[in-house]
Protein backbone atom coordinates (compact mmCIF):
# COMPACT_ATOMS: atom_id res chain seq x y z
CA UNK A 1 0.00 0.00 0.00
CA UNK A 2 1.11 3.54 -0.78
CA UNK A 3 0.67 6.02 2.06
CA UNK A 4 -0.15 9.40 0.56
CA UNK A 5 -0.59 12.05 3.24
CA UNK A 6 -2.13 9.52 5.59
CA UNK A 7 -4.36 7.92 2.98
CA UNK A 8 -3.56 4.31 2.09
CA UNK A 9 -3.74 3.80 -1.66
CA UNK A 10 -3.72 0.45 -3.45
CA UNK A 11 -2.23 1.95 -6.62
CA UNK A 12 0.66 4.26 -7.42
CA UNK A 13 -1.02 5.46 -10.58
CA UNK A 14 -3.16 8.59 -10.41
CA UNK A 15 -5.38 9.11 -13.43
CA UNK A 16 -6.91 12.18 -15.06
CA UNK A 17 -10.53 12.11 -16.20
CA UNK A 18 -10.38 14.39 -19.26
CA UNK A 19 -10.39 13.73 -23.01
CA UNK A 20 -11.87 10.22 -23.03
CA UNK A 21 -14.05 9.32 -26.02
CA UNK A 22 -17.04 8.66 -23.74
CA UNK A 23 -18.00 8.56 -20.06
CA UNK A 24 -18.26 4.76 -20.30
CA UNK A 25 -14.70 4.51 -21.59
CA UNK A 26 -13.54 6.77 -18.78
CA UNK A 27 -15.20 4.49 -16.23
CA UNK A 28 -13.70 1.36 -17.82
CA UNK A 29 -10.24 2.93 -18.00
CA UNK A 30 -10.37 3.94 -14.33
CA UNK A 31 -11.27 0.38 -13.41
CA UNK A 32 -8.61 -1.16 -15.67
CA UNK A 33 -5.93 1.15 -14.27
CA UNK A 34 -6.67 0.05 -10.72
CA UNK A 35 -6.19 3.67 -9.67
CA UNK A 36 -7.29 4.92 -6.27
CA UNK A 37 -7.22 8.63 -7.14
CA UNK A 38 -8.58 10.54 -10.12
CA UNK A 39 -8.17 14.21 -10.90
CA UNK A 40 -11.16 16.45 -11.56
CA UNK A 41 -11.74 20.13 -12.23
CA UNK A 42 -14.32 22.89 -11.90
CA UNK A 43 -15.66 24.64 -14.95
CA UNK A 44 -18.49 27.03 -15.77
CA UNK A 45 -21.79 25.22 -15.52
CA UNK A 46 -23.88 26.05 -18.58
CA UNK A 47 -26.63 23.43 -18.25
CA UNK A 48 -28.28 24.53 -15.03
CA UNK A 49 -26.26 22.07 -12.97
CA UNK A 50 -27.02 19.01 -15.06
CA UNK A 51 -23.67 18.65 -16.83
CA UNK A 52 -21.79 18.71 -13.55
CA UNK A 53 -24.29 16.36 -11.99
CA UNK A 54 -23.84 13.69 -14.68
CA UNK A 55 -20.06 13.77 -14.42
CA UNK A 56 -19.98 13.93 -10.63
CA UNK A 57 -22.42 11.00 -10.32
CA UNK A 58 -20.18 8.93 -12.58
CA UNK A 59 -17.06 9.73 -10.57
CA UNK A 60 -18.76 8.95 -7.28
CA UNK A 61 -19.89 5.58 -8.63
CA UNK A 62 -16.26 4.59 -9.29
CA UNK A 63 -15.34 4.45 -5.60
CA UNK A 64 -12.10 6.41 -5.95
CA UNK A 65 -10.72 9.47 -4.18
CA UNK A 66 -10.70 12.74 -6.08
CA UNK A 67 -7.89 15.22 -6.45
CA UNK A 68 -9.38 18.50 -7.72
CA UNK A 69 -7.12 20.71 -9.79
CA UNK A 70 -6.81 24.41 -10.49
CA UNK A 71 -6.06 23.81 -14.16
CA UNK A 72 -6.14 26.87 -16.35
CA UNK A 73 -5.42 29.33 -13.55
CA UNK A 74 -2.77 31.89 -14.46
CA UNK A 75 -2.71 33.94 -11.27
CA UNK A 76 -2.42 33.33 -7.55
CA UNK A 77 -5.85 34.87 -6.99
CA UNK A 78 -7.53 32.61 -9.58
CA UNK A 79 -5.85 29.51 -8.20
CA UNK A 80 -6.69 30.28 -4.57
CA UNK A 81 -10.31 31.09 -5.39
CA UNK A 82 -10.68 27.94 -7.50
CA UNK A 83 -9.12 25.83 -4.74
CA UNK A 84 -11.62 27.17 -2.23
CA UNK A 85 -14.53 26.47 -4.58
CA UNK A 86 -13.19 22.94 -5.18
CA UNK A 87 -12.88 22.27 -1.45
CA UNK A 88 -16.54 23.11 -1.00
CA UNK A 89 -17.86 21.09 -3.94
CA UNK A 90 -15.64 18.01 -3.64
CA UNK A 91 -15.45 18.05 0.15
CA UNK A 92 -11.71 17.41 0.26
CA UNK A 93 -8.71 19.37 1.46
CA UNK A 94 -6.60 17.93 -1.38
CA UNK A 95 -5.82 20.29 -4.24
CA UNK A 96 -3.60 19.84 -7.26
CA UNK A 97 -2.27 23.35 -7.49
CA UNK A 98 -1.56 24.64 -10.98
CA UNK A 99 -0.53 28.22 -11.64
CA UNK A 100 0.33 28.33 -15.31
CA UNK A 101 3.04 30.74 -16.43
CA UNK A 102 3.40 30.09 -20.14
CA UNK A 103 0.67 29.47 -22.72
CA UNK A 104 2.83 27.41 -25.08
CA UNK A 105 4.54 25.06 -22.67
CA UNK A 106 1.97 25.21 -19.85
CA UNK A 107 5.01 25.62 -17.66
CA UNK A 108 4.12 26.46 -14.08
CA UNK A 109 4.68 30.00 -12.84
CA UNK A 110 6.80 28.78 -9.95
CA UNK A 111 6.81 32.15 -8.19
CA UNK A 112 3.02 32.32 -8.17
CA UNK A 113 2.91 28.64 -7.31
CA UNK A 114 4.93 29.11 -4.12
CA UNK A 115 2.82 32.12 -3.13
CA UNK A 116 -0.47 30.30 -3.73
CA UNK A 117 0.84 27.17 -1.98
CA UNK A 118 1.69 29.18 1.13
CA UNK A 119 -1.79 30.75 1.25
CA UNK A 120 -3.54 27.41 0.78
CA UNK A 121 -1.31 25.43 3.18
CA UNK A 122 -1.91 28.08 5.84
CA UNK A 123 -5.64 27.65 5.20
CA UNK A 124 -5.53 23.90 5.85
CA UNK A 125 -5.26 22.56 2.32
CA UNK A 126 -3.13 19.55 1.39
CA UNK A 127 -1.41 21.09 -1.59
CA UNK A 128 -0.13 18.91 -4.45
CA UNK A 129 1.91 21.45 -6.41
CA UNK A 130 2.37 20.92 -10.15
CA UNK A 131 5.94 22.15 -10.42
CA UNK A 132 9.11 21.86 -12.47
CA UNK A 133 12.09 19.68 -11.55
CA UNK A 134 13.90 22.70 -10.02
CA UNK A 135 15.35 21.83 -6.62
CA UNK A 136 15.24 25.35 -5.20
CA UNK A 137 11.59 25.77 -6.14
CA UNK A 138 10.91 22.39 -4.53
CA UNK A 139 12.56 23.58 -1.32
CA UNK A 140 10.45 26.75 -1.35
CA UNK A 141 7.30 24.69 -1.81
CA UNK A 142 8.21 22.51 1.16
CA UNK A 143 8.93 25.63 3.23
CA UNK A 144 5.49 26.92 2.21
CA UNK A 145 3.95 23.83 3.78
CA UNK A 146 3.62 21.34 0.93
CA UNK A 147 4.03 17.70 2.02
CA UNK A 148 4.21 16.27 -1.50
CA UNK A 149 5.76 17.45 -4.78
CA UNK A 150 4.56 16.84 -8.31
CA UNK A 151 7.27 17.73 -10.83
CA UNK A 152 6.63 17.54 -14.55
CA UNK A 153 8.90 15.31 -16.62
CA UNK A 154 7.92 17.08 -19.86
CA UNK A 155 5.21 19.58 -20.86
CA UNK A 156 1.56 18.59 -20.22
CA UNK A 157 0.17 16.40 -22.97
CA UNK A 158 3.49 16.27 -24.86
CA UNK A 159 4.02 12.51 -24.38
CA UNK A 160 7.77 13.15 -24.49
CA UNK A 161 8.52 11.19 -21.34
CA UNK A 162 11.33 12.09 -18.92
CA UNK A 163 13.49 14.62 -20.77
CA UNK A 164 15.80 15.33 -17.84
CA UNK A 165 16.59 12.12 -16.00
CA UNK A 166 19.41 13.78 -14.09
CA UNK A 167 17.06 16.40 -12.61
CA UNK A 168 14.53 13.77 -11.57
CA UNK A 169 17.25 11.60 -10.03
CA UNK A 170 18.53 14.67 -8.21
CA UNK A 171 15.06 15.43 -6.81
CA UNK A 172 14.74 11.91 -5.48
CA UNK A 173 18.16 12.17 -3.90
CA UNK A 174 17.50 15.54 -2.27
CA UNK A 175 14.06 14.70 -0.90
CA UNK A 176 14.23 11.06 0.17
CA UNK A 177 11.27 11.32 2.55
CA UNK A 178 8.90 13.50 0.51
CA UNK A 179 6.32 11.76 -1.69
CA UNK A 180 7.29 12.61 -5.28
CA UNK A 181 4.77 12.14 -8.05
CA UNK A 182 5.68 12.71 -11.68
CA UNK A 183 2.85 14.76 -13.11
CA UNK A 184 2.68 15.58 -16.79
CA UNK A 185 4.61 14.55 -19.88
CA UNK A 186 4.37 10.77 -19.72
CA UNK A 187 3.48 9.23 -23.07
CA UNK A 188 4.25 5.53 -22.80
CA UNK A 189 4.17 2.85 -20.13
CA UNK A 190 7.97 2.61 -20.44
CA UNK A 191 8.20 6.28 -19.42
CA UNK A 192 6.20 5.51 -16.28
CA UNK A 193 8.39 2.50 -15.55
CA UNK A 194 11.51 4.65 -15.98
CA UNK A 195 10.50 7.27 -13.42
CA UNK A 196 9.28 4.60 -11.01
CA UNK A 197 12.66 2.86 -11.34
CA UNK A 198 14.23 6.18 -10.28
CA UNK A 199 12.30 5.86 -7.03
CA UNK A 200 9.39 8.20 -7.66
CA UNK A 201 6.46 7.29 -5.47
CA UNK A 202 3.74 7.54 -8.09
CA UNK A 203 2.79 8.97 -11.46
CA UNK A 204 -0.15 11.09 -12.55
CA UNK A 205 -1.18 10.88 -16.19
CA UNK A 206 -4.16 11.56 -18.39
CA UNK A 207 -3.59 12.18 -22.08
CA UNK A 208 -1.48 9.06 -22.69
CA UNK A 209 -4.42 6.90 -21.62
CA UNK A 210 -7.38 8.99 -22.72
CA UNK A 211 -6.08 9.61 -26.27
CA UNK A 212 -4.80 6.08 -26.88
CA UNK A 213 -6.60 4.07 -29.55
CA UNK A 214 -7.75 1.77 -26.74
CA UNK A 215 -7.79 3.76 -23.48
CA UNK A 216 -8.81 0.74 -21.41
CA UNK A 217 -5.93 -1.38 -22.71
CA UNK A 218 -3.51 1.50 -22.22
CA UNK A 219 -4.73 2.04 -18.66
CA UNK A 220 -3.97 -1.60 -17.93
CA UNK A 221 -0.55 -1.32 -19.59
CA UNK A 222 0.37 1.73 -17.51
CA UNK A 223 -0.73 -0.03 -14.32
CA UNK A 224 1.64 -2.91 -15.10
CA UNK A 225 4.49 -0.52 -15.93
CA UNK A 226 4.05 1.41 -12.69
CA UNK A 227 4.07 -1.81 -10.68
CA UNK A 228 7.08 -3.14 -12.60
CA UNK A 229 9.06 0.08 -12.11
CA UNK A 230 8.28 0.22 -8.42
CA UNK A 231 9.24 -3.40 -7.83
CA UNK A 232 12.44 -2.90 -9.82
CA UNK A 233 13.35 0.13 -7.70
CA UNK A 234 12.79 -1.87 -4.53
CA UNK A 235 14.78 -4.80 -5.86
CA UNK A 236 18.06 -2.94 -6.43
CA UNK A 237 18.88 -2.23 -10.07
CA UNK A 238 22.38 -3.01 -11.26
CA UNK A 239 24.54 -0.18 -12.58
CA UNK A 240 25.24 0.05 -16.32
CA UNK A 241 28.80 -0.70 -17.50
CA UNK A 242 30.72 0.18 -20.64
CA UNK A 243 32.17 -3.30 -21.12
CA UNK A 244 30.61 -6.70 -21.58
CA UNK A 245 30.56 -9.03 -18.62
CA UNK A 246 29.71 -12.67 -19.38
CA UNK A 247 26.67 -13.89 -17.54
CA UNK A 248 27.44 -17.56 -18.09
CA UNK A 249 30.30 -18.87 -15.88
CA UNK A 250 33.64 -19.02 -17.73
CA UNK A 251 35.08 -21.62 -15.37
CA UNK A 252 34.61 -25.17 -16.65
CA UNK A 253 34.25 -24.08 -20.25
CA UNK A 254 34.99 -26.92 -22.69
CA UNK A 255 38.04 -26.64 -24.96
CA UNK A 256 37.59 -28.06 -28.45
CA UNK A 257 40.87 -27.17 -30.10
Amino acid at each position, binding site marked *: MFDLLGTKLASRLLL*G*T*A*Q*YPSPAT*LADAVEASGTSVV*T*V*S*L*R*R*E*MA*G*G*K*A*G*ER*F*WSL*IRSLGVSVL*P*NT*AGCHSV*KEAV*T*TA*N*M*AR*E*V*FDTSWIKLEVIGNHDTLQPDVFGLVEAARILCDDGFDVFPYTTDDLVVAERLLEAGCKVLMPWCAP*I*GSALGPVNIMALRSMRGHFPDIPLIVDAGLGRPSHAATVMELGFDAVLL*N*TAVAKAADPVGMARAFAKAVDAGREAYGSGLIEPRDVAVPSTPTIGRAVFS
Partner: protein
Amino acid sequence: MKLIVNGEALEAKATTLDALLRELDYEGGWLATALNGDVVPAAERAEFRLSDGDRIEILSPMQGG
Protein backbone atom coordinates in the same frame (compact mmCIF):
# COMPACT_ATOMS: atom_id res chain seq x y z
CA MET B 1 -30.53 44.36 -12.51
CA LYS B 2 -27.71 43.80 -14.98
CA LEU B 3 -25.31 40.99 -14.09
CA ILE B 4 -22.49 39.09 -15.76
CA VAL B 5 -23.03 35.38 -15.16
CA ASN B 6 -20.32 33.01 -16.37
CA GLY B 7 -19.12 35.71 -18.73
CA GLU B 8 -22.52 36.49 -20.25
CA ALA B 9 -24.48 39.68 -19.61
CA LEU B 10 -28.07 39.17 -18.49
CA GLU B 11 -30.94 40.94 -16.76
CA ALA B 12 -32.18 39.32 -13.53
CA LYS B 13 -34.94 39.98 -11.01
CA ALA B 14 -33.15 38.18 -8.16
CA THR B 15 -31.54 40.27 -5.44
CA THR B 16 -29.61 37.46 -3.74
CA LEU B 17 -27.23 34.84 -5.14
CA ASP B 18 -29.49 32.04 -3.92
CA ALA B 19 -32.50 33.55 -5.72
CA LEU B 20 -30.43 34.06 -8.87
CA LEU B 21 -29.55 30.35 -9.02
CA ARG B 22 -33.24 29.48 -8.79
CA GLU B 23 -34.20 32.12 -11.35
CA LEU B 24 -31.68 30.67 -13.81
CA ASP B 25 -32.85 27.09 -13.07
CA TYR B 26 -29.60 25.95 -11.47
CA GLU B 27 -30.03 23.00 -9.16
CA GLY B 28 -27.93 20.55 -7.16
CA GLY B 29 -25.54 20.61 -4.25
CA TRP B 30 -22.44 20.39 -6.42
CA LEU B 31 -22.32 24.00 -7.59
CA ALA B 32 -19.66 26.44 -6.49
CA THR B 33 -20.19 30.17 -6.71
CA ALA B 34 -18.00 33.24 -6.73
CA LEU B 35 -18.92 36.90 -6.83
CA ASN B 36 -16.51 39.46 -8.23
CA GLY B 37 -13.66 36.99 -7.82
CA ASP B 38 -14.36 35.89 -4.27
CA VAL B 39 -15.87 32.57 -3.19
CA VAL B 40 -19.41 32.63 -1.84
CA PRO B 41 -20.05 29.38 0.08
CA ALA B 42 -23.43 27.72 -0.45
CA ALA B 43 -24.49 28.54 3.11
CA GLU B 44 -24.03 32.26 2.49
CA ARG B 45 -25.85 32.55 -0.85
CA ALA B 46 -29.28 33.34 0.63
CA GLU B 47 -28.03 36.44 2.41
CA PHE B 48 -25.60 37.53 -0.28
CA ARG B 49 -27.15 40.59 -1.92
CA LEU B 50 -26.40 41.33 -5.53
CA SER B 51 -25.57 44.71 -7.00
CA ASP B 52 -25.83 46.04 -10.52
CA GLY B 53 -22.84 44.99 -12.58
CA ASP B 54 -21.78 42.09 -10.33
CA ARG B 55 -19.73 39.34 -11.99
CA ILE B 56 -20.86 35.89 -10.93
CA GLU B 57 -19.18 32.58 -11.63
CA ILE B 58 -21.17 29.36 -11.27
CA LEU B 59 -18.95 26.29 -11.51
CA SER B 60 -19.55 22.56 -11.31
CA PRO B 61 -17.49 19.34 -11.43
CA MET B 62 -15.92 18.65 -14.79
CA GLN B 63 -13.32 16.35 -16.32
CA GLY B 64 -9.75 17.30 -15.41
CA GLY B 65 -6.17 16.14 -15.74
